[in-house]
C-alpha cells in the first residue's frame, strides 16, 4: 500500500512541474516586450494595428453583448475596406468576458500586456466596467464603453459612448412630468444602475414637483411579478419608471398585461428595453409603452439608413439594431478618427486628438467632450409600435452636453457625489 502511494505522488508531482512549465512556455516569446510599460506603442509595430474587443460571448450577458461585438466588427471591416487607419489594417483581438467581472479584469490585462492592443472596445454592465477600470488606469490603456450607464464616473482612460444620466434619465423624467403625470413608481432590478438612477430621479422629482409613490427592487433573474403588480395597483401611480434588466422585463411586461393593465391605463418608461429586448418580450405585449434612448433603428438620418442596411446584410434580416449596438459602432469610428488626427495610436496623443472630435453617427451628430470623455448625444423618447419598432415622440433637438456628475443641476447638489 505504501509503495503504491508514493508512486502516485511522484507522478502527480511530475505533472505539477509540467503544468508550471506549460504556463511558462507560452510566454517566453513575449519576454523582451514585457518590460515596456503599457505597450501602447507596440501595437503599431507590424503591418496591422491590434485592437481588443472584450464582451461576454458566453454566459447570461451574451444576450446583449454579442450584438455589440458584431457591430464593432462591422465597423472595423468597413474601415479596413477603406484602407484602414494610418494606412494599416485594424486587426481585432476578440476575448470573452464570460459574464464574469473578474474575467473582464483578467482579459483586459491580457489584451493590454500580452496582445499590446492599441485600444479596447468592450463591457456592458457597470460591474464589468468597474472591474476593468483599475486595469486600464494601471497599464494606461484606452477603453471604449458603449452602454448607457449611471454616470458619476469619468476615468481618464475610458471613453463613454453611451448616454450618461443627463442624456437619458433626467430629460425623460422631465418629459414624463410635463406630459404624463406627477406620481412616479420606481421599479428596478437590484443592482447598481437602478439604485443610482432612482436616487437621482428621487431628487429630481422633489425639485420638479413630482411625487414618489413607491420604489421596488427585484433580485436579478426574478420571474414572478404578481406581488409587485399588486403593489403598483395599490399605489396608483401615473408613471412606472422601469430600470429592470433583460429577463425580468419579459416577466414583468407579460404579467402586467395579464393583470389587465395596458399602456392606456398606465405609462411605463423603460431605459433598458431596446429593439432586441422587444423581440424577446413580444411586441404585442409592449405596444404603447415608452423607452428613452439616443438611437432607434427607425431614427431618420442618411447614415442610419446605410448602417441598418449593412448590419442586416451582414448578419441577417431578422437582426435589429439598437442603441448600444450603434454606440459600439460609433466607438470604433471615433477611435479611428482620433488616431488619424493624432497620427499615432499612443494613448495620450489619441486622447488629445479626440477632444472636440465630431462625427456624423447613425444617431445624428455626436461630439466628444474633452473634459469628461463622454459624447454629446441627442435624447429621444420613443413609443413601441406593434411591429416591434419605436416611434419617436420627442427629441432634444440638438446633442446634449454630457454631465456625468450632474454639476449643471442645482437639485443634484444634495446627491453628494464626491469629487
Amino acid at each position, binding site marked *: 500500500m505504501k509503495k503504491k502511494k508514493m508512486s502516485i505522488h511522484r507522478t*502527480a508531482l511530475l505533472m505539477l512541474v509540467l503544468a508550471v512549465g506549460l504556463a511558462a512556455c507560452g510566454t517566453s516569446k513575449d519576454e523582451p516586450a514585457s518590460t515596456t510599460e503599457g505597450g501602447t506603442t507596440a501595437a503599431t509595430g507590424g503591418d496591422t494595428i491590434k485592437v481588443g474587443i472584450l464582451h461576454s460571448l458566453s454566459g447570461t450577458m451574451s444576450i446583449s453583448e454579442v450584438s455589440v461585438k458584431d457591430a464593432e466588427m462591422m465597423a472595423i471591416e468597413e474601415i479596413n475596406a477603406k484602407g484602414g487607419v494610418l494606412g494599416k489594417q485594424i486587426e481585432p483581438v476578440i476575448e470573452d468576458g464570460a459574464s464574469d467581472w473578474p474575467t473582464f479584469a483578467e482579459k483586459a490585462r491580457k489584451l493590454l500586456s500580452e496582445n499590446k492592443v492599441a485600444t479596447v472596445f468592450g463591457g456592458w454592465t457597470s460591474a464589468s466596467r468597474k472591474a476593468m477600470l483599475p486595469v486600464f488606469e494601471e497599464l494606461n490603456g484606452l477603453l471604449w464603453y458603449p452602454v448607457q450607464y449611471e454616470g458619476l464616473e469619468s476615468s481618464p482612460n475610458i471613453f463613454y459612448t453611451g448616454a450618461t444620466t443627463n442624456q437619458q434619465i433626467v430629460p425623460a423624467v422631465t418629459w414624463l412630468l410635463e406630459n404624463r403625470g406627477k406620481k412616479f413608481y420606481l421599479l428596478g432590478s437590484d443592482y447598481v444602475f437602478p439604485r443610482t438612477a432612482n436616487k437621482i430621479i428621487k431628487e429630481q422629482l422633489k425639485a420638479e414637483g413630482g411625487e414618489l409613490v413607491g420604489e421596488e427592487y427585484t433580485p436579478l433573474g426574478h420571474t414572478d411579478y404578481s406581488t409587485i403588480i399588486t403593489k403598483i395597483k395599490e399605489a396608483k401611480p401615473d408613471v412606472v419608471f422601469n430600470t429592470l434588466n433583460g429577463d425580468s422585463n419579459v416577466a414583468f411586461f407579460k404579467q402586467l398585461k395579464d393583470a389587465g393593465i395596458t399602456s392606456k391605463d398606465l405609462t411605463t418608461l423603460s431605459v433598458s428595453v431596446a429593439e432586441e429586448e422587444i423581440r424577446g418580450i413580444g411586441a404585442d405585449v409592449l405596444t404603447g409603452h415608452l423607452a428613452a434612448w439616443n438611437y432607434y433603428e427607425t431614427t431618420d438620418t442618411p447614415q442610419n439608413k446605410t448602417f441598418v442596411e449593412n448590419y442586416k446584410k451582414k448578419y441577417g434580416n431578422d437582426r435589429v439594431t439598437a442603441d448600444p449596438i450603434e454606440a459600439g459602432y460609433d466607438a470604433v469610428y471615433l477611435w479611428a478618427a482620433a488616431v488619424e488626427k493624432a497620427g499615432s495610436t499612443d494613448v495620450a496623443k489619441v486622447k488629445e486628438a479626440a477632444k472636440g472630435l465630431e462625427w456624423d453617427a447613425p444617431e445624428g451628430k455626436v461630439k466628444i467632450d474633452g473634459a469628461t470623455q463622454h459624447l454629446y448625444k441627442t435624447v429621444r423618447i420613443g413609443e413601441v409600435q406593434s411591429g416591434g419598432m419605436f416611434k419617436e415622440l420627442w427629441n432634444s433637438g440638438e446633442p446634449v452636453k454630457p454631465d456625468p456628475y450632474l454639476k449643471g443641476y442645482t437639485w443634484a447638489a444634495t446627491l453628494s457625489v464626491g469629487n
Partner: protein
Amino acid sequence: MTQTWSRARIWALIGYAVAAAAMFAAPLYLSDFRLNLLAKFLAFAIVALGLDLIWGYTGILSLGHGVFFGLGGYAMAMHLKLQASGGRMPDFMDWSGLTALPAFWKPFESLGFAFLAGLLIPGVLALILGYVTFRNRIRGVYFTILTQALVIIATTLLIGQQAYTGGTNGITGYSKIAGQSISSPDTKQMLYWVTAIFLVVAFVLCRFLVKSRFGKVLRAIRDGENRVRFIGYNPALYQMTAFAISGVLAGLAGMLFVLHVGIISPSMLGIVPSIEMVLWVAIGGRGTLIGAVLGAVLMNGAKSEISAQYPDAWTFIMGALFIVVVVFLPGGVTGLVERLKFRKRSVSEHEQEAVRHPAV
C-alpha cells in the same frame, strides 16, 4: 508509521522539491501577466484543498464554498478599499446615500484585523452551519442542497445591501497594500510568493490532518457514518471541525484572490463558481491532496487558454469534463495515473483500489 526511506519515498521528496522550486522560481521565467494568473490559480488551489478535505476525505459535498471564499475576499477588499480611499468614505457609499462610514467597516482599516476576519468569519459561519446541520444528521444530498440555499441567501443579501457592500459591482479600485502600491511589479511578485507560501502551508496542514487520527476518522465517516457512531465517536464533531477548517481555507483563498485580481463581487459567491470549485477537485482527484492542487491549477489554466480561443466550445468542454470525470474517472487525473500504474502490476490490487473510493 515506520519511516522507511524507500526509493519511492526519495523520489517523491525529489518530486516535491522540484515542484516547490518551480513554483517559487516562477517570477524568474513568467511574464507579469502570467505570474498574476498563476498566483490566482494557486489561490484557487487553496480552496480546492479545503474542499477536498470535506468532500474527498469526509464525503460531504458543499456547493456553498463560494460563500466562504467570497467572505474572505470581502474582508480583504474592505481593507484595500479603505486604504484606497485614504480615510474618506469609499466612493460607492457616497452614491448610495451613506453619510458616514458604517461602524462595522472601521476595524478593517487594520490589515491584521482584516486578515483575521477573513479567516474567522468564514470559519465561524461554517462552524455554525455545520453545527446546526450535522447535529441534526442532515447529510448527503440534503446538506448539499442546503448549501445552495446558503449561497442564495448570501448573494441576495450582498447585492441588496448596496450601500454597505457595493452591490453587484462588488468592491474594486484598490491602490495600496501595507503602504506599497498594489500594482507595482515588485508588490505583485511579493504577493505571488506570499500566495505560494500559504499554499505550501495549507498543503502541509491538510496532509498532517489527513495522516493523523483525525483524518482516519474523517475517512471512516465517509465510508460508514453509522459505524463510526456505533464505535463511540461523534461524527458531527468531526464533520463540523473539517467543515470549519475547509471554510477557513476558502476564506484565505478568497483574500489572496482579491489581492491578485483586484475585485470581489457577489457573482464570485454564486452557485456556478461554487460548483466549478468542486469540478477542480473532481478533475484532479478527490481524496488526494495533490490532486486537488493539480486540478485547480490545470483546470484554470485550461480555462483561460481555451475559453479565449473558443468561448462556445469551452462550455461544452466543461460540461463534458463533468460527465466524463464523474462517470468514468471517479479518481480524477491522479486516479487515472494510479490505475495505469496498477494495471502493470496486478489486477487484484487495482480492484482493491477501486474499493477505496466507494460511492459517496
